[in-house]
């Protein structure tokens, strides 16, 4: 991994309309595998968290990476060619803001 200071959080929203339960599981396994492969090839990226919004048939995937291109790359590999990658900040309930992933707050 790159220096923790170089890593940022990125959010990608995925449209889950029309996907069956097994396909949802497949989607997340595929994203995880794409990240694992990128990481093994030396890309500093981590699939941090997934937040499902079942009523709206979408999910939000949080990645930690050195840049948005890396996040876009794993989404390309997982066949999300139109994924929009947004840099985000993670805030603790006390109002403090961290730019790094949850693990780094420890």
């Amino acid at each position, binding site marked *: 991994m790159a220096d923790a200071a170089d890593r940022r959080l990125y959010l990608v929203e995925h449209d889950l309309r029309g996907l*069956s339960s097994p396909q949802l599981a*497949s989607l997340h396994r595929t994203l995880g595998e*794409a990240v694992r492969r990128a990481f093994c090839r030396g890309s500093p990226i981590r699939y941090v968290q997934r937040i499902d919004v079942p009523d709206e048939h979408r999910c939000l995937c949080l990645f930690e990476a050195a840049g948005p291109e890396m996040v876009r790359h794993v989404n390309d*590999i997982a066949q*999300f*060619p*139109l994924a929009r990658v947004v840099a985000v900040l993670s805030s603790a309930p006390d109002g403090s803001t961290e730019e790094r992933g949850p693990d780094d707050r420890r």
Partner: protein
Amino acid sequence: MASGGPPGRLRGELTEFVGRRAELALVRQALGTARLVTLIGPGGIGKTRLAIEAASSTRRAFGDGAWLAELGGLRDAALLVPEVARSLGLSDRSARWAVAGLSDYLAGRQVLLVLDQCEHLADACAVMADALLRGCPRLRIMATSRHVLGVAGEVTLTVPPMTVPDDCPSAAAGELLQYEAVRLFTDRATAVQPGFTLDAASGPAVAGVCRRLDGIPLAIELAAVRLRSLSPRQILSRLDSRFPLLSCGGPADQPHHRALQATLEWSYGLLTEAEQSMWRRVSVFVGSFDLDAAEAICAIDGVAPGEIVDLIDALVAKSILLRSGSGSARYRLLDTIGEFGLHKLRGLGNERRLRLQHFRWYAGLAARQEAFGRQRVPWIAALNTDHENLRAALEFALCEPSEAAAGAEMACDLWRYWETHGHLTEGRRILSAALDRLDQGATARPRTLWVAGYLALVQDDLPAARTLLETALTAARLARNASSLAYASTLLGLVRYGTGAAGEGRDIAEAALGLHRRSGDQIGEMLALSQIGYICLCSGEMSAAADRYRECARLAESTGNVWYETYARWGLGVVAWLLDNHDAAVVQVRAALRAAHDSGDQIGMALGLDTLGWIAASQHQRARALTMLAAADSGWAAIPAVLPAALREHHDSALDAARHVLPDSASRAALAHGSAMSTAEAIAFAIGDATQPPSRPDARQPGANAGPLTRREREVAALVARGLSNSQIAAELVISARTVETHVQHIMDKLGFRARAQIAAWSAGH
């Protein structure tokens, strides 16, 4: 609808497959037990040929066939699944995760999928294969790659060089022919020199060539074509003297790679300067190309277009270029040979110029914009044949700051191609890349935005469509771009309708119609008319819908626009059906179906079949209705696409009504009949004539059939024949003048007339 012919599609090969019995047996055995078999080996070793041969010989074991996806020309890993879907003849119309769409299609099918040349997309191929194999229990995949994919359960088979004889000068020809490399050389030698035989004189030299080339099939083929001008001994002698020089410097652990590179260098060195130059130049093509393209792109630096054909001929004769295509000739380079040519081209520095020529040629093809008329089918087919070149041209333009705007315009010119050939995701991705590269004030920006919004709309990605179209509106206003303002408004109207604001959607589209008319854009006018018609139709405003569709039909006919004729006729048919005028509805929808068939519009065909199913159910032709509904379902699935949600209730109601009355066995038989029909059979069935396609109203003998007219229309026609005006007819029949006008228009539509005098003449004869 079932597709005609044997299932599957594998590339036909022009040369005989030689040897490889042991490898073939191993591949077949592996396919019998493993669900993912990867053939690995260096370039030129024969992986593709072996995979295709193995797939051909085992395809009978796969009920739904063996299909080849050639991935060598694909550079963008994100488009892997759409590309594989394209190989299976599927369209990409949905914004849904593409892996799920492909998985749905393959889930119930017994298919062998051959993924050729995965090495540059290894990760994407691996995750796709893993997902498909988990979701599709009867699917097997055979991949070719220079490296292992690394998927659980993958069985890898290393493709070895062909067997070669040891150095034994006294070996008899028969003995030498036991070796695959010698048999391959001899086979290819016979093709270039029909009298060639392997004998005591030629045998040792041929064996020496095969040994020198490490048994690499591509290298042996390149050497064999030299028999046109050299004897086997001369070939060996030149290889012996050149190889130490040519094969040094490559990776020490890849002797086969070095041997192949040395053979390529040797072959290159034997060409004339003009032929060498041509090899380099044609390396800018991806996939295959035709002579026109080669003449336009490669005739530079003093080479005249007229000389190109001779140079291509020379490269074909030397097996550098392969001829493909059974009709108009097309040519292609094997990937390894193309890579070598590109390497040489880069070294000589005019790659950019050639790529610019390549881009301009294909931008010109896209700019022909024949998406709507009678030339639509051949134009779309030409684009599809050159899909890989279009993609390469766009990639080049969008990476060149000075060409980004032209690239964006080319991508926009392809809007109907992206849509109708089901390359929506690819189109959106390219347009998105174009937008990233265009300045905020770029002239091409408003159009690029609305085209991207249009494709998002077609994919039912309404949030993205809305954002893009609203941005397009703002950009168009700032740039005072009336055309983009009109298109963005038209499409935004449909988005507003799709998000539940039908009234607002219609108002926006009506305003846009005015903009199109003011700018004299008839395509835009028809787009707006058909969309307003659709919004009105789905909102229950029948008269307004009919008016707009009728205007659209008139304009479509007068401009020869088959595309909009389809949807205008369909709309008029649905309006007639909803007003219980079933006969008129059938006439219109059949005309729509014919127009869709003429233009190769799969959506239009599925829609036409579906609608005729609704009408048949209303006419109590229940078995017929079920057959057409099943044929329509197959049509939608084959695209794949779905009937728009707003129309789904008509399909479901027709299905329920027919099944409710028919005995189960009859229902099942009718549905099975429809599901098994080919497209042509379904259309012939739907128009009520199994042998003759339907005539469109404008092609019929005008007024030949009085059947479609309702009683009231016949009364109106009789009064028209008496010379009465609409107001006088209204007074006579105690109806409004507007209603008379509608009746008159219906009569003209049904009978294919353009003037009231024709109604009078027709009425006199009936």
